[in-house]
């Protein structure tokens, strides 16, 4: 119901946005985020990062302003959301790892979720300036851009996680355990069988290292691709309408996909968080030892 209402509001605003966009004469959302300041590395996607953080903090401040043991209102909702995610991750990673790492996974999930939804607000990525480069090519500089439609942001999250993953893996396993986890033979091999298995598992370990190195890249492009692709899809669908009707009806073909994008925004936040949690769980998993 909440989403339906939000979408309804978006779509009341949407024709106005399209009108504004059409006035500016832009064609497509660029692949990369645009620099807004010549000296400082500030891009239009960073503005959305700050807006997303601001909104989350405002919500949390409202929720935690009058904390009570018997929750009500905002606090109740915030607790429900956070506790649900916590329980979900606890079921996946176990109590110890979740307690240690929830601050990261919780932040990542809510940040991605809010950023994805902010990127769907009409005007984000569609309203901006027309530009002209040195060769006389027309361009478009949107004022705002979805935070996760910028590969630098998704890469920042992925590689930050990669570093944290290494830190958590080392502190949970220690260096010997960490290396053994990757390269040592798994199973109860003895004698000749063990000798035969050592080179096999060394090779598997090398593959594992490559897999580990690829993970942040995969995380980066998965999130970026889905979010950028979604925004690009909406924009392309708006341009399907004949030019004469575009000012008034360009919002119509994109309407069903808006609902899908709302789902994608949530799913991608969940997928990113879930994959990170699984990667961590895999390296910190002690198998049978944990039960003893």
């Amino acid at each position, binding site marked *: 119901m909440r989403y339906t209402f939000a979408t309804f509001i978006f779509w009341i605003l949407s024709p106005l946005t399209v009108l504004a966009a059409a006035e500016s004469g832009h064609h497509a959302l660029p692949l990369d985020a645009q620099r807004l300041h010549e000296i400082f590395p500030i891009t239009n996607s960073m503005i959305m*990062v700050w807006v997303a953080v601001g909104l989350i903090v405002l919500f949390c401040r409202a929720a935690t302003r009058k904390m009570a043991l018997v929750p009500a209102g905002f606090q109740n909702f915030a607790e429900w959301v956070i506790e649900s995610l916590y329980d979900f991750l606890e079921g996946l990673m176990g109590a110890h790892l979740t307690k240690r790492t929830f601050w990261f996974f919780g932040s990542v999930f809510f940040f991605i979720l809010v950023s994805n939804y902010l990127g769907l607000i009409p005007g984000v990525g569609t309203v901006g300036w027309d530009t002209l480069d040195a060769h006389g090519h027309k361009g478009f500089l949107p004022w705002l851009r979805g935070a996760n439609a910028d590969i*630098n942001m998704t890469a*920042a999250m992925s590689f*930050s996680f990669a570093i944290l993953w290494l830190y958590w893996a080392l502190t949970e396993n220690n260096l010997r355990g960490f290396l053994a986890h990757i390269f040592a033979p798994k199973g109860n091999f003895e004698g000749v069988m063990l000798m035969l298995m050592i080179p096999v598992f060394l090779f598997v370990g090398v593959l594992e290292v490559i897999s580990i190195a690829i993970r942040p*890249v995969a995380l980066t492009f998965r999130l970026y691709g889905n979010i950028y692709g979604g925004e690009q899809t909406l924009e392309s669908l708006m341009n399907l309408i004949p030019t004469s009707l575009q000012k008034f009806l360009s919002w119509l073909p994109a309407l069903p996909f808006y609902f899908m994008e709302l789902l994608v925004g949530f799913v991608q936040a969940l997928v990113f968080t879930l994959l990170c949690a699984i990667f961590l769980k895999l390296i910190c998993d002690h198998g049978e030892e944990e039960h003893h």
Partner: protein
Amino acid sequence: MTTFLAVAAENPGVLETISKTFGLNWPFFIAQVVNFIVVIIILKKFAFGPVQAILIERKTRIAAGEAKLKQIEKQLADSEANTAAAIAKANEEAVRLVNEARHGAAVFTEQKSQEAIAQAQQILTKAEAAAKADRERLHTELKREFGRLVAQTTSQVTGKILTADDQVRINEDALAKVEA
């Protein structure tokens, strides 16, 4: 990033192409990393910190409450057992007291009955003694009056003044005849 570097080392230009196509560059990347770190710190401090603290506090309280509940249940069970034992003991005591009271009442009743009987017997004996004394007194008075009347009648019939001895003798004769 490591993979990019590895691929780039083998295929010069690949990383540059990818970076250029998607706008991946160091200044923006570092800026976004800084942004992300700030995001994490802010959210940890203002969002998850307080909420998690209250969740932990609530869980602790619930656990403590459950422990107390178990303790209370145990105490209640002990108390119920103690109460049942006390009630059983009180019942036994009550039965004993009632029996004692019944026995005491029976003894008391018997004692009082005996006392009443003795008292009644005593009253009866006294009454009989009093009646006997009255009867003897009346008998004596009657004899005296009868003697006086016999002496008076004899004196009036004979016209003779009787002496004290005569009066005694006449009275005794008359009485002997009446009593006979």
